[in-house]
């Protein structure tokens, strides 16, 4: 078997030293748009009155005589918006506490020519006003440009979905200004890609430069952060302050102001976060020097709620590690600043979201140190700087190119930079380590069974009265503690890895392929599966199948070539084919299955036999009929899922010999027989290195000759202790 190992070593050497990847990081975007904005808050808000002077450059090969705009803030103008209509369709009936909206006060060309605009009626919501169409008197030819001046009045809603304000003066302005759509080529020719504000999708726009002069009440001085670099902050005589901000090569602009929040700036210095082993690996894979792969220094800005002082260092650490690893793996972060906003408590809906150069985190007090909050959300939302921010995919149709990549990258950073998380339970909002072996049953108040658990008492209806449900108990964390005594009955150390945590999608619906446009998914759960978890697991599977060096080159090439662009899934497919060559996988077939279809990946050890070898068929009922210590070994592996992919199978024999086989996974069954083996097979492992992260069930991928009953015994002892405490508690109830 040694020759197998030498070939593997040779392959690794070739892999690592093959084709260096010349650096191709663009220094700037095509600057399709330029926004110059003057905005003033009226009084203490929430009204903003502004004027934006927008220049749009036609960098396509087709002319257009229209400009299409997103006016996302009108999603909160009334119940009849697309967003709220779709939300109701998905069973989400929530409404903002107060409406928000944006009115267009005036629209004209730079030379003063007035322009007419119309709201584009949407099929499901004809009264929606989140898409505006403007007709131009003269078409904009390829290579030409047009400048318009737009006056608007925007009323932000109380924090509802990603945007809004809190009662203490917190303002988070996201999707707050009229923004141009993207004029691009589609299957039907060149057209404006300008979807309304959908419930299930996010935002898409062109790259360019933004300048904003924002005037706010003076209480906000020193408490404003934004996509752009703050250039100046000038106090005005009327008790306001004007903050000048500028950002280049971004496709959106958000800002946050909070008079009570703490603002701190720190410098990310690459040298303080060096992971030399990882740097060497990346440099070798790319064929570049260490200096070429090391990320640059950046200013980190944190807007922190005073109550979250305990998380200050954790926020900064998470941001710094993100800057380091994302920069190392994909290309340095190009901007001067990165801002993290810790949302106000009454504006938590604005948390967990990303904008160019700014992201919102969010955390509650009482987190255990082995639970990665706020680290997880910080790394994830930072990750969007690279996927969505710098690689500007179409979020309406291909959210997975952002969320899937970000989820994949986030999990890589978390597993690299922090110890594994441990599961916790909560008592009075404080977390403690442990996981319950079972859960106490609960029933709804209308179920007759509810009285079994003394939670509800359903009194049936009579001829004289309607049925009555009395709530006998209310679930609280203290009662749960007293009932179950977690210190005695819970499993104390349940490790929780983010990547394997994604395997929970196998318990969910996979009804639509990844190729399905995001905004058109049939449910929010499918959107989450298809945008986040499933693509992340698919990427992880790809990376493990092709090997780390190839993957490093692939991802680096993908990011560098697509930075400041609007990539399509087919372009990623081409990148995959280019870098995956030689890895022993038919990547086109893999892509076809993973992206355009819905197959599940599942292998199983169906059967393992160690038959004693027959030497005398006439004496099968005695030992003379069989050879001494010679076995006919038979191993049967089944591909029980539809996804066809190569898989490795390890066989371990009783004499310690280990064999690795590779099956192409095309047929439904793999059969291995060794007619005369001197040792029994004692263990079989399908996919021993867990390359197939999309595998549906790992439990049946292994087989051992001697079943281990200790786990069953341990699990049942835990369950017994837990049940004893619960029943003892109820023994004293009443």
């Amino acid at each position: 078997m040694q020759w197998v190992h030498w070939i593997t070593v040779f392959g690794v050497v070739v892999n690592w030293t093959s084709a260096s990847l010349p650096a191709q990081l663009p220094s700037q975007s095509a600057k399709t748009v330029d926004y110059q904005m003057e905005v003033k808050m009226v009084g203490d808000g929430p009204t903003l009155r502004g004027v934006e002077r927008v220049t749009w450059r036609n960098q396509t090969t087709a002319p257009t005589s229209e400009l299409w705009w997103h006016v996302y803030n009108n999603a909160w103008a009334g119940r009849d918006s697309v967003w709220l209509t779709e939300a109701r369709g998905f069973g989400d009936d929530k409404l903002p506490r107060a409406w928000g909206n944006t009115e267009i006060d005036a629209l004209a060309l730079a030379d003063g020519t007035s322009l007419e605009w119309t709201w584009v009626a949407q099929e499901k919501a004809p009264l929606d006003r989140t898409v505006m169409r403007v007709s131009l008197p003269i078409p904009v030819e390829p290579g030409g440009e047009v400048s318009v001046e737009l006056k608007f009045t925007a009323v932000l809603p109380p924090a509802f979905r990603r945007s809004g304000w809190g009662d203490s003066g917190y303002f988070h302005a996201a999707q707050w200004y009229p923004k141009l759509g993207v004029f691009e080529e589609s299957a039907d020719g060149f057209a404006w890609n300008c979807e309304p504000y959908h419930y299930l999708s996010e935002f898409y726009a062109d790259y360019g430069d933004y300048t904003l002069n924002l005037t706010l009440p003076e209480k906000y001085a020193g408490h404003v952060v934004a996509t752009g670099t703050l250039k100046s902050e000038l106090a005005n005589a009327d008790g306001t302050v004007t903050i000048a901000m500028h950002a280049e090569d971004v496709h959106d602009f958000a800002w946050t102001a909070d008079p009570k929040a703490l603002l701190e700036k720190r410098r990310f210095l690459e040298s303080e976060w060096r992971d030399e082993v990882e740097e060497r690996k990346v440099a070798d894979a790319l064929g570049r020097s260490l200096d070429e792969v090391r990320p640059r220094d950046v200013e980190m800005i944190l807007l922190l709620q005073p109550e979250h002082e305990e998380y200050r260092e954790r926020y900064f650490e998470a941001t710094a590690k993100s800057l380091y690893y994302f920069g190392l793996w994909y290309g340095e972060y190009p901007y001067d600043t990165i801002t993290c906003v810790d949302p106000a408590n009454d504006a938590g809906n604005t948390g967990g979201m990303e904008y160019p150069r700014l992201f919102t985190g969010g955390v509650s007090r009482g987190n255990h140190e082995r639970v990665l909050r706020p680290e997880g959300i910080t790394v994830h939302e930072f990750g969007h700087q690279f996927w969505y921010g710098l690689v500007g995919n179409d979020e309406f149709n291909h959210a997975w190119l952002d969320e899937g990549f970000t989820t994949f990258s986030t999990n890589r950073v978390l597993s690299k930079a922090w110890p594994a998380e441990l599961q916790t339970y909560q008592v009075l909002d404080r977390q403690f380590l442990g996981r319950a072996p079972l859960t106490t049953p609960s029933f709804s108040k209308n179920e007759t069974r509810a009285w079994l658990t003394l939670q509800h008492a359903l009194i049936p209806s009579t001829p004289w009265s309607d049925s009555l449900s009395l709530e006998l108990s209310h679930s609280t964390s203290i009662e749960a503690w007293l009932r179950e005594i977690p210190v005695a009955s819970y499993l104390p150390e349940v490790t929780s890895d983010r990547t394997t945590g994604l395997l929970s999608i196998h318990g969910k619906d996979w009804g639509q392929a990844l190729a399905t446009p995001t905004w058109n998914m049939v449910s929010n759960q499918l959107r989450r599966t298809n945008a986040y978890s499933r693509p992340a697991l698919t990427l992880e599977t790809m990376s493990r199948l092709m090997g780390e060096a190839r993957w490093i080159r692939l991802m680096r090439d993908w990011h560098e070539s697509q930075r400041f662009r609007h990539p399509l899934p087919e372009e990623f497919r081409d990148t995959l084919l280019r870098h995956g060559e030689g890895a022993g996988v038919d990547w086109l077939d893999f892509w076809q299955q993973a992206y355009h279809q819905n197959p599940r990946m599942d292998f199983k050890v169906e059967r393992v036999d160690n038959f004693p070898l027959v030497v005398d068929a006439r004496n099968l009922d005695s030992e003379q009929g069989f050879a001494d210590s010679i076995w006919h070994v038979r191993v049967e592996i089944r591909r029980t899922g539809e996804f066809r992919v190569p898989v490795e199978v390890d066989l371990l024999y009783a004499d310690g010999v280990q064999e690795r086989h590779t099956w192409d996974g095309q047929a439904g069954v793999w059969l291995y027989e060794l007619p005369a083996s001197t040792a029994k097979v004692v263990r079989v492992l399908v996919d021993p290195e867990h390359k197939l992260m999309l595998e549906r069930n790992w439990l049946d991928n292994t087989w051992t000759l001697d079943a281990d009953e200790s786990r069953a015994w341990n699990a049942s002892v835990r369950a017994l202790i837990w049940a004893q405490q619960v029943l003892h508690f109820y023994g004293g109830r009443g």
Partner: protein
Amino acid sequence: MSSANQERGALAHLSNGFRITLARPRVVFFLVGLSIFLALPVAMPVHQSAVNELGRFASLTEAVDLLVSAPRWLLDAWARQDPHMASSASVLLAPLMLLSSLLGILIAGGWMACAREDKGRHALSAFFEGGGLWFFPFFRVWILGLFIYAFNTWLIWGMPGDWVVEQFLPDGKANRAVSENTGRWVNHTREIVFLLALLKTEIFLDLARASMVARERRSAVGGFIRAIGLWLRRFPRILRLVGVGYALEGGWIFATLATVQWMAWPMVTLVFLLPLGRVICRGARLAGLATFCGEQSRLQMQSQTPLPTDPPEALLQDGTAWAGGETDL
């Protein structure tokens, strides 16, 4: 003043309760066995499922003992592969919860009857005889308790509680408060108040039962009214008795866990040790409450019995208290 007129301290009653309980080891061990027996139907499906799904699973990289450690993905995968395991455990546990509550009434009756007998019979049969004797009166108290639970729950988690919370939190929601701490403290206070209400209800119900046994009265409503009276007159002592009893039970739990860990005993020893201490502590609390109520009842009756105002003639004639020469003090 004679000892019969003296009130004993709360801890004296509690320690007396421990004496009564520990003097009946057969009862204690029976109840420990019962706790194992009742929990077995929940543990058995878990065992079988683990044999089927995990018996031949081999992990090369992670600790998977399912006693102390396990990776989350494995537990989740197990649940996906055998969703019936969790649901069957739940289905079995639900009626056992109700059964435990009803058995608790029987057991409470047994301990309280033993406390009344005290140095009388110690046999298991005596325990169950007492429990059986008082089962239905205690069951009526149990029914009364359900209405009190419902009232508590409505008061704290229903409209009145919501109204109070809305004075502190906009729309009564913690995530609408400007301060996260405000939201947390309001919610925590609500939980703690609910817990105290539950505890108070349990104490009242146990007091009601104890007073019924002490006075040999079978009226649940009467017992509850007497319990309220006792609480109003003697709540610090009652609180001490019950509180120390719970504290000792908590101490037993932690001491047992620490001992098992320190001595590296197998986890299965907890199956015996935990209920052993908890059964004894609960029995001691119940027996202590019973003796406390008995003492209160006796004192009350003594205070109601009028003192003789005129001595018998014989005393005046020959100097002795009674003609027979005996005293009755």
